[in-house]
């Protein structure tokens, strides 16, 4: 009877201690309490530890059974403690991180930020297209001779473009300051990038594919659609067999690359002294036809002025306005914004 009683007592003591400890673990309110519970119920001075120490007094069979019961209780408690610990850690993090919250809607922090001028960036975008077509970029002087700017480009001596109303002249650098009857000095701010055609032909042999970006000048008072200084990109392709069909194809793919593959284009006859046949390319944009560029087959006289035999070589050339393209890209209605250099404008782009 007593054996049986004693056996029962011995078998339930670990379970009792386990249940008591589980209760304590479950009711621990924070990690500190949990640590305390752990020490009290699983530590060296815990009931289970004390029970463990009494195992030696038992007979082998009893010892084995009770040993198993103690181990089972310990495992259960360790698991329960770990689970409760994870729970309490998560609770603690939640509270702590909530307290650390910041206002994520405050303005971002960036280094001081600059902007590149829209005209230059448009010019670079156009050059990307032309280099993609196999053109090499070349640049020439802005102060030019009237020979390069007019004579060599087949412009008649009396052409109105040569007048002071149209062209900005500069005084001669060699000190001879006397002017021709109505002003021209023979030295001018180039009115077009075309004089670089002559310089390019003089400095290299065909086949020649060059794109010439640059500033050009006209004697214009600034208004919404005119500036005395603006930008062009000149293209020149010369080989033995280039034709008007090559001109059309090249300019079509270039225009579509800039304005979109779906843009409607038309080539319209026009006049330039330095090309024959000549044309203008229009794009249908914002409900109307808009002039994009002037182009044509290089005039034989111009090929000859550049040192090429016009019976052997032929090619095409064009000049396109950069500023106007920049107006299209950025929806700008007034050219003067480009030269006012107002940071409110420049930094909006």
């Amino acid at each position, binding site marked *: 009877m007593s054996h049986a009683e004693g056996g029962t007592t011995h078998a339930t003591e670990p379970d009792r201690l386990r249940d008591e400890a589980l209760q304590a673990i479950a009711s621990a309110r924070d990690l500190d309490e949990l640590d305390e519970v752990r020490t009290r119920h699983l530590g060296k001075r815990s009931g289970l530890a004390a029970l463990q120490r009494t195992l030696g007094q038992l007979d082998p069979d009893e010892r084995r059974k009770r040993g198993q019961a103690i181990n089972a209780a310990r495992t259960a408690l360790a698991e329960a403690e770990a689970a409760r610990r994870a729970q309490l850690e998560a609770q603690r993090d939640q509270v702590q991180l909530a307290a650390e919250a910041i206002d994520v809607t405050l303005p971002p922090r960036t280094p001081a930020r600059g902007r590149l001028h829209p005209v230059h960036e448009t010019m670079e975008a156009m050059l990307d297209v032309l280099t993609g077509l196999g053109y090499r970029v070349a640049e020439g002087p802005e102060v030019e001779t009237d020979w390069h700017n007019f004579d060599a480009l087949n412009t008649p001596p009396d052409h109105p473009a040569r007048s002071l109303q149209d062209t900005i002249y500069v005084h001669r650098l060699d000190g001879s300051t006397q002017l021709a009857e109505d002003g021209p000095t023979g030295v001018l701010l180039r009115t077009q990038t075309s004089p670089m055609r002559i310089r390019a032909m003089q400095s290299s042999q065909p086949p020649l594919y060059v794109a010439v970006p640059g500033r050009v000048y006209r004697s214009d008072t600034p208004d919404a659609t005119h500036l*005395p200084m603006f930008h062009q990109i000149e293209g020149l392709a010369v080989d033995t067999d280039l034709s008007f*069909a090559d001109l059309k194809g090249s300019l079509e793919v270039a225009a579509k690359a800039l304005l979109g593959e779906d843009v409607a284009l038309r080539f319209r006859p026009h006049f330039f002294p330095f090309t024959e046949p000549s044309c203008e390319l229009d794009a249908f944009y914002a409900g109307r036809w808009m002039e994009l560029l002037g182009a044509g087959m290089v005039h034989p006289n111009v090929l000859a002025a550049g040192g090429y035999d016009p019976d052997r070589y032929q090619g095409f050339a064009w000049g396109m306005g950069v500023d106007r393209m920049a107006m299209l890209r950025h929806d700008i209605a007034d050219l003067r914004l480009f030269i006012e250099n107002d940071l409110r404008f420049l930094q909006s782009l």
Partner: protein
Amino acid sequence: MRVPLSWLTEYVDPGLSAEQLADVLTMGGLEVEAIERPTGGTRGVRVLEILDIAKIEGSDKLHLVHATDGDETWEVVAGASNFSAGDKVAGALPGAVLQGSFEVGRRKMFGHTSNGMLASARELGVGEDHSGIWVLDDNAPVGADVTELLDLDDPVLVLDVTPDRGYGLSLHGLARDISALTGAELRLPASQAPTGDPGVPVTIADPDRCRRFDARTIRGVSVRPSPAWLQRRLAAAGMRPVSGIVDATNAAMLETGNPIHAYDLALLTGPAIEVRVARAGERLTTLDGVERALSTDDLLICDAGGPIALAGVMGGEPTEINPSTSDVLLEVANFTPQTVLRTARRHGLHTEGSKRWERSVPPESAPLAATRCAQLITEVAGGSVVGGADHYPSPPARPVIRLRTQHARSRLGVDLDPSTQASLLERISCTVVPAGEDLDVTPPTYRPDLLVEADLHEEIVRVHGYARVPTRVPSSGQVGRRTPEHEARRAMRRMLAGGGWTEVMPFPFIADADIDALGLPDADRRRGTVPLVNPLSQEEAVLRTTLVPSLLRVLRHNVNRQRADVAVFEIGHVYLPPTEDDPGADGGPEQVTLPAEPQVLGLAACGAFEAARHDSPGRPADLHDLLGAVDLVRDAVGRAPVAVTPTDEAPYHPGRAARLALDGAELGTVGELHPRVAEAFEVPPRTLVGEVRLDALLDGGIRPRVAAVPSALPPIRFDVAVVVDEDVPAADVADAVSAGAGPALAECALFDVYRGPSVGEGRKSLAYRLRLEDPERQLTDADESAAIDGVAASVEARVGGMLRR
């Protein structure tokens, strides 16, 4: 050129709408810029005949008018009284609409009811005249609808005619092209040679400039306004109606392209005509009332008494058509483009006539112009043509152009056989004679612009249609690219923008006063500005030799607009007198001297470089931000840091400016503006500017970077603090530290500058963090001690400094 459609379709009518016809012209090289209806939208205006006019009691100006439309009599109050009983006028009766917007009603004035109104020319949009009621010509049918009678809804095509296509400034020329492009039948009037009495003798003293002179005499004209239909057409074409005779000369010019002048024959001395250049001292009062001193280069029409007209430009006042003119001498001449261009320019007289001469009028157009003008005069001013003579001493030979058809195919890229090429040219009235594979082409007289083979190529492809040319994209056979210098510049611009600098684009013009304001020394090369002949303004009178003045202007513009924080740059040309080392571009056959155009980086800043935020105060821009920009630029192209030395030159604060060099070559300067210079340019105090020549940095493009292989062995880090005299430049100290630390030095960075009692008066302490690395072996404490000893010895020897230990 403004072309009333109804006038044009008298000569060719392809049965197209105004819009369709505009498209044909535009795609044919005669660009139609706009289609206007300047007199459109008028409804319900009718021809009334005046019955009687009476002054209204109590009013200064108003008259009570009774007028009839043939059926009914209308009572109308009129403000003007420039008409009389029997005159035909335009009556806008109640319910009528003027020019599509103004609806006319009944009004009560001074006890009378005005049933609508009588219209002036301006109220109908026909002209500017608003001084009185528009009196129509006598044969206007009473009761007729004025809109129909005068074709007020007629569209006007506004053309932008290119300089080569002079024929585009005539209705006949346009009709020829429309016929060529559409195949519609051309109906041009025939010309008649003068008959009868040759009349006034004509001497052409300068047949090179005056190639033809057709003079016709008309007697018995009466000077009166031309009929309403002609006034309406001229006004629509942009010409002010004057009188029947003058209007007829203008109309005939618009039709044929040949300018015409009419003289009052009774006022001609002689009468005799001579065409010659002016003699020294001669003067002429032109039709605009200006007395002009003539140049001996001006071609004149003279009578026996002297000059009566500036040939091709403007007639003289003394012989002009006037109200009592009854006999007229018509001048239908031919002048070369250059003579008219020079005279027009010299006298600042650009007229409808000179515009046509400048684009070349063929001598062959004179007889038809004379025929048409004389006929119109007799129609609108009465009188009869009594004679005349056509002086055409030496008709020029017409050019024959050999067209190589294979060459044309090759240049145009269209497969057109010789006979197709021939027929395309024949459509614009060329005479074409086959010569084997090739063609001998004689252009029509109305196309003096067709001179060489290439001109014919354009005509072939134009008539064939530009749109019908196939497209082909040729291969250039090369890789396209920018020049290395261009790539380098682009890298610099991008780096600067990333570093907080905004690119600006001012005009490259400055004033010499700007150079003075900068205080540059007399010998400075930047004083060698190149003046413009025709500057836009005195503030922009010379080409810039420095970017600084225009950058300061940009800065001022922004500061004045409450943008106090500015950091801007420009990479652009300056224009300097050329030197042997710095030459200009090739000056062409005449070896003209051109300026050197080096690329320069300009910088300007004021206000905060780092803007204030809610969590940090702003930081004002200082010299080191500019030096930072220069460092970004050299880094962008893979160059070593530039050497910096202090400078006290203009235009800078003498203690806050630096001179920059790369590999011993001068690059430029940066610094704070001298306070007096800042005042002169009206920019804020402490404004910073800089200017760096880019040639040396751009040369050869972006340098490839050589990789630094990091050592796998751990580095040694330690700090040293060097005490030196206040005036020793930090760069010298850093050099001394670096040199002393030995070959294992991988990094040397200044992290603190200290002044205070512990380092002594007039001294400063610079603290550096050093890192030693050796990929070959493990560094030890002994290496660190040796490096520190080395630094100590080096700073003592080089900059007189000592280590704080």
